[in-house]
């Protein structure tokens, strides 16, 4: 036990610093010149679609892959060339990777025993109690359900109190209730011990509810990084605007600017965006607004300063989702616009075919640094039926992934 890192328990989390990391596999580049600093004690989420390089980043930090270029520092120490077992890092694997020939208890105690921790077994029991699985300590992993296995995998990593805990889609197989519970548990553990968590996920909701800082990753690069609210309220790229929730995006040219706002002409419509919320202030720009910020009006509202009004448009689809209703409004020259309206009254306010106007406060708009064409965006086919089919397909794909 020569090194302080792998021996003993981490007193606190450690900083993670990635400097100019590039990872190439034969035939493709997974990560290109990635620079990232995760402060000690933070809960950091790397969010992105599959194939964006987030899992590769995690494996690089764990030492399971070697970077083609760049350096990895944990707690200020360069660990780029150290072996996985020498790094003060533990991983909750997406596939759990629980040792099938050992009992649940032996699995959880494995890391402790390797480090010759004296009270490995009591500590393992304690970790199992934390995930409410102490009663199955003597079973083999194959005798547990997927969700239970995932919790064992979590216990097996957390019990080591690593300076840096890596989570690879750790809550994927849990049902909603357990998922919430585990999210809270994870946050508790993280706050109690002050560990640094690096969480990789494609689930934007999970990333936003759990992490202090979210980095949205796309094609091997970080598109935008910040607090969840900041990312949601002020996306800087079309990819972020569409990957984190939904956005209505319009592309036009800046027709006039003032001290605190710019006005963009999209077809015949003029839309105002606050200057400090826009990334570009001249030429062709893409601006957007979140669907829940839009107000539906059945008659043309009076033009008030500080409000954008577009319309008239026609409602092409209404889908009721309990707490809110999603309207699809076709506006001439602007395309199809999504509106979320809280269900303050019984049933939808307007029906398909109704003529409506849309209004939103100028302060809610945002201007992007790129064009929607830069982001992979599918043809908006937003009838209720096709949404249902898409949802079903994505669920099926998720189930296939797990199987």
């Amino acid at each position: 036990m020569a090194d302080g890192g792998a021996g003993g328990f981490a007193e606190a989390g450690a900083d993670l610093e990635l400097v100019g990391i590039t990872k190439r596999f034969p035939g493709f580049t997974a990560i290109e010149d990635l620079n990232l600093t995760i402060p000690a004690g933070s809960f950091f989420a790397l969010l992105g679609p599959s194939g964006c390089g987030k899992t590769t980043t995690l494996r690089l930090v764990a030492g399971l892959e070697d970077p083609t270029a760049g350096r990895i520092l944990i707690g200020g120490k360069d660990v780029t060339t150290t072996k996985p077992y020498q790094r003060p890092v533990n991983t909750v694997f997406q596939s759990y990777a629980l040792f099938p020939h050992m009992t649940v208890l032996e699995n959880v105690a494995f890391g402790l025993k390797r480090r010759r921790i004296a009270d490995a077994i009591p500590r393992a029991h304690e970790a199992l109690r934390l995930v409410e699985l102490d009663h199955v300590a003597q079973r083999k992993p194959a005798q547990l359900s997927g969700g239970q296995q995932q919790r064992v995998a979590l216990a097996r990593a957390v019990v080591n109190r690593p300076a840096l805990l890596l989570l690879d889609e750790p809550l994927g197989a849990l049902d909603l209730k357990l998922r919430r519970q585990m999210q809270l548990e994870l946050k508790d553990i993280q706050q109690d011990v002050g560990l640094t968590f690096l969480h990789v996920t494609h689930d934007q909701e999970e990333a936003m509810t759990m992490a202090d800082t979210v980095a949205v990753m796309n094609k091997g690069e970080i598109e935008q990084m910040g607090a969840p609210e900041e990312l949601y309220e002020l996306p800087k790229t079309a990819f972020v605007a569409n990957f984190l929730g939904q956005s209505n995006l319009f592309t036009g040219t800046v027709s006039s600017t003032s001290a605190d706002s710019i006005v963009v002409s999209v077809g015949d419509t003029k839309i105002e965006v606050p200057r400090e919320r826009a990334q570009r202030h001249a030429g062709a720009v893409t601006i957007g607004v979140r669907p829940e910020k839009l107000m539906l009006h059945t008659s043309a509202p009076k033009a008030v300063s500080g409000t954008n009004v577009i319309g008239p448009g026609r409602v092409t689809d209404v889908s009721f989702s309990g707490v809110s209703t999603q309207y699809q409004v076709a506006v001439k020259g602007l395309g199809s616009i999504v509106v979320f309206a809280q269900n303050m009254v019984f049933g939808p306010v307007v029906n398909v075919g109704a003529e409506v106007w849309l209004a939103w406060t100028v302060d809610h708009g945002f201007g992007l640094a790129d064009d929607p064409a830069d982001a992979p965006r599918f043809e908006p086919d937003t009838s209720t039926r096709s949404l249902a089919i898409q949802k079903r397909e994505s669920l099926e794909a998720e189930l296939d992934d797990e199987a």
Partner: protein
Amino acid sequence: MAFGAFTTTAAPPTDAGARKRSKVALILLLPGLAYLALFFLVPLVSLVLTSLQSKVPGGDIGEYQFDLVFANYGTVVGQYGEHILRSFGYALVATVLALLFSYPLAYFLGVTLRRFPLLQALGLTLVIAPFFISFLLRTLAWKQILSDEGMVLGTLKNLSVLPADAHVTGTAGAVIFGLAYNFIPFMTLPIYTSLEKLDLRYVEAGGDLYASPARTFFSVTLPLSAPGVISGTLLTFIPAAGDYVNASNSFLGSPDTAMIGNAIESNFLTQQNYPAAASLSIILMATILVLVAAYVRRSGTEDLV
């Protein structure tokens, strides 16, 4: 109508259906059972009876009559005790050597070459290739290679690395070498099958949990490939203990290295002492059975065979 019994209709399966099915299964089993009875059970009983026979008083050599002379067993143990011990000793050492050679080979084929299916297939073919030549011929070839004036010893003697009277054939080392060599494919293939399925993510997890590569090997890789190791060692140890080719005078052995198989052969074919040969055979069989049962039990993998 007869097929009705096999189709799954809406009606719940009845006992009659199950009984009909089992009858068919029984008929299908019959040839196998008859074969076993005729070629295993009958010879076994005959062997047991032979082992208890006594000499016909005043009869010719090789003339024996029905009797129940249990003392035959005591006699052969006294006479061939050394052979019996030698057999299991040689078989054990040969099994260990074959395992030490085969495990890295199987690991290389099953894990390292995993990403190159063509090379993997080629490697496997090479492991099996010796089977294309008769077992006897291969062993004879080794006798030539290792003979006193052969390529290896001749050269070493000319270079004065070895003294002029050095010899390898006829020694225990040569017999053990021959046994290990001949059973390497039987050891390699089952281990390969286990390692080929090994999920390397477990190995990654071991590394992630502070286990050094050596530690990960002994606590993760080896236990997960245990079924292959156990099958391989059984497939080597059992036939090696009864082998009489490698240890015989005409191959790699000498009278000093004779194993139980050689004693059985000599008693059956040369001395025509059938009761002694039969008793030795049964002792060999029973000992292997006990050893293997203890081994499999200890390994805790009753579910592998």
